């Protein structure tokens, strides 16, 4: 295997006992736990040899059950049997508006949504932690002791709130979390190390509830993520739901009860899976009121009713390629991850876009957990036979709010982490002593369209003229993806700092919408930006003119004063409108009108300086 061997003999850690490290793929539909044993990553199966755990938690009469035991009860006890909890992580009830797939008794609480169950009100974090606890126990039984470190995977396109919720769930389950790892990256590690792959690879990850695309460069044992994109609300679940809707329509059924809905969703999923291998499949069920369902679904029909879901995955791929400045033909291989990629229509679409059949020599269900186990093994400090390094990126841009409600991007999306970036800002008003710093996440130009992450203030800036202060704001994202923002006024050394721990993040819908809009409304944004910039400029000139007139109004004659007043009024009038070109002209007109005044003020300043009197002693 052509992998890098660079460990310095004297730099190696002291010999010690092997630590118990595990990788967990916490999926929407299924979860897995894996470890590295004798240098080989393996999935840890249950007592019956089953590698997958259905991501289902049931709060039953006699306690909590998970996995297959919970799955058996999902149709008979839908309110207390929680499936797809991952889709609720870090989400509020408002975020789920219109999504009637969930038969739960939702409780609207601030921040994250909660579910009323027999065992009390549960948050998605608690539900996920029950699942993670079962996986931890399985691993402990298999490895013979407490876990020293775990890597838990998340969709690459998960935002801060979703990541934080996942981390909380793992901690709640008693897992020492080494890191959250992006799912497609985990898959790339497992695939790349197994196949000694070199070159540009794409990982197409269509899971139960999320879609990710990552473009990586694999070279000499370094896995470099070049770009990532995705849709945090698109997955195999949506295909099931399409089939479910088709059943309702084809069998002319009235809106089903919660338990009938769950029954039909299970039938829909089975039918979808059947059609991967067969051209048609029977859907037979008996509803709670005895209504029989007896239908035949063909692969052609399935392909037809899910065509736009498949199409929805292609746009993020194009964006990721664009961000990586690559063409589809530059990609050497496409790795498929997630059970939903077994569908022939998905494979066909991927093959068509990349002009080559995707790589299928690995199990799309297991590859993420295996990659996580390999990473966990390294991070826990176990000696690797293979030397490799992962360089991952920030999925969404990070920036600051500037004048006029605009976003100044400081760390653009797809920046390799760890990253430290600094940008200089200045004060807007004379004598301004504080500056509000508002940290945002997103791709749009206006703050209102991005997600707010944190706010803090830099206070105690010494009095200076507008524009004289030099405030250096530094963004630092570490290898774990945690953001730290600090601000410092350079001439005085006044400093402030915040570690960003958002209480809630972007919603699924918001992410998809924000990204779509950032492309669709690029032109609107440009106009909005131009207008906001002119407005800021207008405020600046008006402020400067007023203070100049207040200080040295005697330097202009009546004619000049009238011209300035007229120009001021015109700027004020257009400042309220939305025509940036007219406002720009008015700004320029005001600038011209104040030129004689500015020149004479300059002279007066020089005169004062020559007579040795301090300018500020005269100006008030």
């Amino acid at each position, binding site marked *: 295997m052509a992998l890098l061997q*660079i460990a*310095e003999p004297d730099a190696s850690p002291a010999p010690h006992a092997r630590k118990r490290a595990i990788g967990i793929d916490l999926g929407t539909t299924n979860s897995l736990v894996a470890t590295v044993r004798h240098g080989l990553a393996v999935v840890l199966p249950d007592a019956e040899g089953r590698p997958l755990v259905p991501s289902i938690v049931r709060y039953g009469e006699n306690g909590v059950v998970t996995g297959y035991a919970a799955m058996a009860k999902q149709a008979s006890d839908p309110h207390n049997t929680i499936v797809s909890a991952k889709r609720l992580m870090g989400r509020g009830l408002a975020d789920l508006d219109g999504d009637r797939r969930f038969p739960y008794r939702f409780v609207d609480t601030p921040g994250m949504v909660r579910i009323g169950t027999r065992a009390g009100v549960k948050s998605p974090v608690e539900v996920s932690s029950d699942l993670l606890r079962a996986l931890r126990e399985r691993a402990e039984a298999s490895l013979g002791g407490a876990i020293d470190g775990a890597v838990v995977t998340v969709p690459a396109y998960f935002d801060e709130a979703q990541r934080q919720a996942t981390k909380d769930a793992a901690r709640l389950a008693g897992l020492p979390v080494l890191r959250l790892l992006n799912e497609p990256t985990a898959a790339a590690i497992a695939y790349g190390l197994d196949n000694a792959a070199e070159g540009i690879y794409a990982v197409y990850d269509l899971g139960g509830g999320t879609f990710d695309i990552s473009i990586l460069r694999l070279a000499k044992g370094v896995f470099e993520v070049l770009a990532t994109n995705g849709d945090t609300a698109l997955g195999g679940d949506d295909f099931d739901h399409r089939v479910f809707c088709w059943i309702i329509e084809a069998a002319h059924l009235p809106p089903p009860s919660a338990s009938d809905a769950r029954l039909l969703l299970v039938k829909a999923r089975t039918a979808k899976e059947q059609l991967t291998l067969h051209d048609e499949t029977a859907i037979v069920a008996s509803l709670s009121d005895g209504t029989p369902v007896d239908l035949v679904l063909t692969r052609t029909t399935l392909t037809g009713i899910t065509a736009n879901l498949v199409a929805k995955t292609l746009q993020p791929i*194009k964006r990721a390629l664009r961000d990586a400045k690559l063409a589809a033909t530059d990609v050497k291989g496409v790795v498929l991850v997630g059970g939903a990629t077994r569908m022939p229509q998905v494979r066909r679409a991927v093959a068509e876009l990349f002009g080559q059949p995707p790589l299928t020599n690995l199990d799309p269900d297991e590859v993420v957990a295996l990659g996580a186990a390999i990473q966990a093994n*390294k991070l826990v*400090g176990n000696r690797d036979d293979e*030397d490799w390094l992962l*360089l991952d990126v920030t999925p969404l841009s990070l920036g600051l709010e500037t004048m006029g409600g605009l976003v100044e991007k400081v760390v653009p999306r797809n920046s390799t982490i*760890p990253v430290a970036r600094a940008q200089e800002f200045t004060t807007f008003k004379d004598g301004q002593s504080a500056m509000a710093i508002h940290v945002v996440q997103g791709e749009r130009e206006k703050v209102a369209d991005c997600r707010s992450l944190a706010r803090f203030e830099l206070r105690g800036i010494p009095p200076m003229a507008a524009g004289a202060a030099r405030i250096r704001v530094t963004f630092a994202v570490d290898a774990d993806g945690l953001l730290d923002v600090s601000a410092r006024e350079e001439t005085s050394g006044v400093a402030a700092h915040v570690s960003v721990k958002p209480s809630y993040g972007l919603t699924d819908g918001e992410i998809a919408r924000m990204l779509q809009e950032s492309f669709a409304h*690029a032109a609107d944004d440009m106009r909005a930006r131009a207008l906001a910039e002119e407005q800021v400029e207008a405020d600046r000139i008006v402020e400067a003119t007023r203070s100049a007139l207040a200080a040295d109004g005697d330097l202009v004659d009546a004619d000049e004063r009238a011209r300035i007043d007229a120009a001021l009024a015109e700027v004020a009038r257009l400042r309220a409108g939305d025509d940036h070109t007219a406002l720009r002209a008015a700004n320029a007109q005001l600038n011209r009108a104040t030129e004689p005044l500015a020149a004479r003020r300059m002279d007066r300043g020089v005169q004062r300086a020559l007579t040795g009197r301090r300018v500020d002693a005269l100006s008030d």
Partner: protein
Amino acid sequence: MARVHGVAITRSGFTMIDFTHNHFALFGLPERFAIDAAALDAAYRRLQSEVHPDRHAGASAAEQRVASQSSARLNEAYAALRTPLARAQYLLQLHAVDAIDERDTQLDVDFLERQLARREAADVASVAGDVAALEALHAAALAEVADLETALARDLDRAGADFSGAKPRVRELAFLVRLADSLDAMIAALD
């Protein structure tokens, strides 16, 4: 302390980069505009493999912090050298020339008129959904970018180069790269 292209290996065996090096020296590359991209990529990967915090998972908190700073510094240096525009700006900066000075945004009038006409044509094509016209404008912008890069390599990589005199060209390059990017975005939006 042994030293290999910007990396110092301390007595304890811990590796860290030399923060006093400029970006070129960090990667062991000559200070030139025309660089060997493959050599840059290889040096970046080799150095990251040394200093990245994940390579020091068992190290002390202080060493982890140094690893993180070193790794971030490499990412910054790599970003500054990887694209020709960033590299030109950095090269000028090394010679105390600020190419993209906000107080001095002067561009050649002919150049500016040509680009404004292009932008207008792009807006019209974008509204009309004319992808072919946008592609043509994009290709033209990229061709001009390539010409400017050739000219910059000639101007900057000769003995006694006039770095200050290269400012207008770097500014034009910045303008064109931005134009090409927005044309690309317009094409993608119509796709």
